[in-house]
C-alpha cells in the first residue's frame, strides 16, 4: 500500500480483501446532494463564488444545511429557475448572463465564478459548461468562469467537491518537463491541518508540496509527469483520475485519520520520495507519540463498544478503521454512499471480514438493522440523529467529520473525543430519554 500507482498499472480491486460481500439495497437514500460541499468549498477557496443554477429547493437546501447562521454574505448563491424560463418565455442563457453580470458587479473581488449544476438544470439539459465558456469569454481575465455538477441525481454530498476539483484539473498549469518531483495533496483540509502537514513535509525534506483546492483560484498547483499526488479525503476519486490523465502519479495510502492512518499516509509519501527510514522515524516520532497519548484518553470510553455507521461522506471506511484498530470498538456496519474500492481498499483491507459493508441505501431497512443490532453508538446524519436519541440510543452526527479538522497527528485526539462525546454525555446526564 505504499506503492506509487501509475494510471496504466493501477488495479481496481486488489487492495480490498477478496470475497468481502457488499450489501446493496435499493430504497430511499437519506443523504445530502453534492451542492452541500459548497458549504466548505466557498470558505476554502477565498476568491471563488459558487452560483448554483437550480430551484428554490436547492436554495433552501443550502440555507437549511448551512443554517441562516452565516453572518457574512456567503460566497454562494442560487440562480432560481422560474416558470418563465421553463415556458421558454425567457431565454435561459440570457437570463443567466444577466444574473452573472449583476453578481459580478456586486462582488468585483471574485476571481473565479463557478456555475454549479443541479437536478433541474440537468434534467432540462441546460448546458452549463458551454454557458461557462461563453461567460468566460466575456469576463476573463478579471474573472474566470467554470462549471461542474453538484446535482442530487448524480452526486451525494462530498462528491460535489470531487466534481469541482476534477473540473479544476484542466485549469491547472502544466508543470515544466524538467521540474523537480512535486507533491499535491488532494481534498479540502482545514488550514491548520495544511500548516501542520507542511511542517512534517519540510522535516522530511519532501517538496515542493501544494494543496488542491488551493486557498486561491490563482494559485492552482502546476501538474505534469513529475507530479505525484496523494488523496487526503476519500471522496476525490474522479479528481484523481483527471490528475492521472494529466500524467501525475498517485500515491496510494490509508487516510490520515488517527495515529496509524496518519503514519501510513506520511510513510507512503516518504517512501515515494525516498526518505530514509531513520529520518522518517525521527520526524514523525513526536507526533506519533502525542497522537497515541491524546487518543488513549478516550479509549476507555469507546473500547468494546459497538458502532453502526450510516452513509454520509465516504469517510465511513476510514473512520471505522480508526475506531476498530485504535479504539478497539467493534464495527457492525459501515454504510457508505459510494464505495470506491480503488480509493478505500487499503482501509477495508485492515478491517476484519465480519464487518458488514453496505453501499447505497434503503434507509428504512437500515434503520431496521439498527433495531436488530442495537449498537452502542450510531454515526448518522442530521435527519436521523434525534429520532434515534429519542429511542434512547447514542448518536454522533456525521456532518461534523467533514467540518472539523481531524486529519494528522495533532487532531487524532480531537477525532477520538468527537466520537466519544455522545457516550460521555449520556454518562453525565442523569435525566433524559
Amino acid at each position: 500500500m505504499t506503492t506509487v500507482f501509475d494510471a496504466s498499472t493501477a488495479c481496481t480491486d486488489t487492495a480490498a480483501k477478496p470475497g468481502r460481500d457488499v450489501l446493496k439495497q435499493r430504497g430511499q437514500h437519506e443523504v445530502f446532494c453534492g451542492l452541500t460541499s459548497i458549504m466548505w468549498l466557498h470558505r476554502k477557496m477565498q476568491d471563488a463564488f459558487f452560483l448554483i443554477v437550480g430551484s428554490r429547493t436547492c436554495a433552501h437546501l443550502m440555507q437549511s444545511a448551512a443554517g441562516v447562521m452565516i453572518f457574512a454574505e456567503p460566497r454562494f448563491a442560487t440562480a432560481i429557475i422560474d416558470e418563465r424560463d421553463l415556458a421558454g418565455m425567457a431565454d435561459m442563457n440570457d437570463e443567466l448572463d444577466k444574473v452573472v453580470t449583476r453578481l459580478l458587479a456586486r462582488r468585483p473581488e471574485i476571481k473565479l465564478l463557478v456555475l454549479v449544476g443541479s437536478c433541474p438544470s440537468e434534467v432540462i439539459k441546460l448546458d452549463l459548461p458551454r454557458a461557462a465558456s461563453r461567460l468566460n469569454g466575456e469576463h476573463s481575465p478579471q474573472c474566470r468562469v467554470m462549471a461542474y455538477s453538484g446535482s442530487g441525481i448524480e452526486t451525494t454530498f462530498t462528491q460535489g467537491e470531487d466534481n469541482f476539483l476534477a473540473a479544476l484539473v484542466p485549469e491547472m498549469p502544466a508543470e515544466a518537463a524538467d521540474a523537480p518531483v512535486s507533491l499535491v495533496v488532494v481534498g479540502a483540509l482545514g488550514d491548520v491541518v495544511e500548516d501542520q502537514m507542511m511542517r512534517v513535509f519540510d522535516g522530511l525534506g519532501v517538496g515542493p508540496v501544494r494543496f488542491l483546492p488551493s486557498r486561491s483560484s490563482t494559485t492552482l498547483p502546476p501538474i505534469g509527469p513529475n507530479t505525484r499526488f496523494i488523496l487526503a479525503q476519500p471522496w476525490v476519486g474522479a479528481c484523481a483520475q483527471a490528475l492521472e490523465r494529466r500524467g501525475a502519479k498517485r500515491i496510494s495510502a490509508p487516510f490520515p485519520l488517527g495515529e496509524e492512518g496518519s503514519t501510513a499516509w506520511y510513510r507512503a509519501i516518504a517512501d515515494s520520495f525516498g526518505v530514509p527510514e531513520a529520518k522518517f522515524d525521527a520526524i514523525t516520532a513526536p507526533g506519533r507519540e502525542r497522537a497515541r497519548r491524546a487518543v488513549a484518553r478516550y479509549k476507555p470510553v469507546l473500547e468494546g463498544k459497538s458502532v453502526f455507521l450510516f452513509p454520509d461522506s465516504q469517510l465511513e471506511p476510514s473512520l471505522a478503521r480508526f475506531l476498530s484498530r485504535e479504539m478497539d470498538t467493534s464495527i457492525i456496519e459501515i454504510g457508505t454512499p459510494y464505495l470506491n474500492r480503488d480509493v478505500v481498499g487499503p482501509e477495508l483491507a485492515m478491517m476484519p471480514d465480519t464487518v458488514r459493508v453496505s453501499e447505497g441505501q434503503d434507509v428504512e431497512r437500515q434503520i431496521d438493522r439498527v433495531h436488530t443490532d442495537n449498537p452502542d453508538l450510531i454515526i448518522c446524519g442530521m435527519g436521523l440523529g434525534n429520532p434515534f436519541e429519542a429511542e434512547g440510543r447514542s448518536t454522533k452526527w456525521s456532518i461534523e467529520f467533514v467540518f472539523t479538522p481531524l486529519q494528522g497527528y495533532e487532531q487524532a485526539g480531537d477525532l477520538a473525543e468527537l466520537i466519544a462525546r455522545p457516550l460521555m454525555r449520556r454518562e453525565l446526564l442523569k435525566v433524559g430519554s
Partner: protein
Amino acid sequence: MELTVWTYEGPPHVGAMRVANSMRDVHFVLHAPQGDTYADLLFTMIERNKKRPPVTYTTFQARDLSGDTAEIFKTAARDAVARFKPQALLVGASCTAELIQDDPGGLAKTLGLNVPVVPLEMPSYQKKENWGAAETFYRLVRAFAGGAGKPETAPEQASCNILGPTSLGFRNRDDIVEVVRLVESLGVRVNTVAPLGASPADLARIPQAHFNIVLYPEIADTSARWLKRQFGQEMVTTIPIGVGATRDFVAEVAKVAGVEVPQELLESGAERLSWYSASIDSNYLTGKRVFVFGDATHAISAARIASEELGFKVCGLGTYSREFARDVREAAAKYGVEPLISDNHLDVEDAIIAAQPELVLGTQMERHAAKRLRLPCAVISSPVHVQDFPARYSPQMGHEGANVIFDSWVHPLMMGLEEHLLQMFRGDFEFHDDAGSSHLSHGGPAAGHQPDARDEQAAVAAETPAPDVAAATSTAANDDQPSWTSDAERELRKIPFFVRGKARRNTETYATENGLNPITIETLYDAKAHFGR
C-alpha cells in the same frame, strides 16, 4: 431566473411536508432526488421532533431517468403504505420530479392501494412553502370533510375548529394552548384543531362545528373559505396576538358563537403587558422607532402592539407573504409608512438601514441583519430557527402571549435609568462602546455570537462582518456628505453608541439640507433642536 442568497420560504413541497408532519396517520410519498431529504432535518433538528417526518422520498438518480422513474415511484408508494399503514397517503413531486412529469397522482391510482390517496400539484417554479402548506391542507380537508354533508342538528353547545397551526409554525405549539383556553372560557367547545395534531378522521369531523377560527391565514384561509361556502361555517379572522387583538378576538368569537363574554375575561387580569407598559419604568419606550417585517399575520399584529400597546413608533412595515400583501399595505397606511413587500432579504436590510430603527422586529434573517447593524432585535415570525422552539412555554397569542411579547421585545433594549446614566456619565470606564446593557449577558452590541447546536455546522463559515453591509452603511454617510470638524466629531463620540448613529445621520441630513459644511458643534446641536430626540 432570480438571484437568491437566503429565502424566507422553501419550495411548496416543504409546505406539504409541514402539513403531513403536523398530522397523525398521514404519510407523504414525494417523488424527489436524494438531496431533497435535507428537509427532514427541519423537523428533527430545528423543531427537535422525536420522530422522522412521515415522508418517503423516491430518491431517483440520473441513471433512472432513461429507465423507469415511474416504477421507482410505485415501489416507494407500495412499500410506504405497507410499512407505515397510514389512514391517508399524500403523493406529490418536488421541483425535479415535476420536470420529468411522472404524475404521482395518476400512478398511485393504478396501484389499487387500500388507503385514500390525496394527490398534490405543487408548482415548484411558481409557488412557495406557505402556498404549498395551504394547498395541501385544503386538499386534505376537501378529501375528508367533503363527503360528510352539513350536520343535521347543531349540538347544544357552540363549537368551533381551530385551523392553521402547523409543524414548524412560529410558536404554534404554545399558541394552541392559549387559544383553546380562551375559547373554552367562553363556553365554546373546541371540535378539532388542525392540521397540528389532527388525523384524517378528525378532518372528517370539521363540518360538525359551528364555526372556524382561522389562526394562521397563510395556511388555513383557503380551507376556511371553502368550508364556509360548503357548510356555511363562519370564519373568525381576528388574530389574538396582543392585548387589543385578544380582546377583539374574544368579542368576535362571542358574537359568532352567540355567547356572553364572562366578567372575569372582560377584566382580563391575566395579561400584564398593559400594566407594565403603563408603569413609569416604561416611559423610556415612548416613540422608539421600530421596524417590523415577517409573515403577514405576525407583522400586522406586531405593528399594532408596537404602536398601540407599547407606544413605539412604527418606522417600517413589510412582509414576504405576497399572498397577503394587501392586508399589509392597509396596515402600513395606518402607520404612515411605505409597505415593503419583498422576499429579497437584501432589500429588507436596505430598508432597515434607511428607516433608522431603534428596534427591529423580524425573522431570523432580520435578526442577523440587525446584529450586523448593531441594532436590538426580537424575532416575531417564521422562517424559524432552533431558537424559535424554546423549551419554556412561550406563546405569542392570548394573554400569556402578550406577556411573552412584552418581555421579549423590551429586554433587548436598554433599561430606562440605565439609558439615562449612560447619557450622563460617558466618561465612566465601564460605559465604553462595547459594554452591553448590564442585564444582558449576551445581547450587547459587540457581544459575541450566542452559540447553539447549529453553530457546529456553521463552524466552517468564519464570521466576518459582511463587507458590503459595512460599505452600505458608510457610503450612506460618505456620498456628498459634509465633513465633520474634529471638535464636532469628539462631541458626537460623547453620545452613547446606541443613539450615535441616529445623531450622526440626523446631523448630516440637517447640514446637507441647510448647505452647512463642515459640521461643527453648533451644527450638531442645531440638528438636535431641529429633530428633537
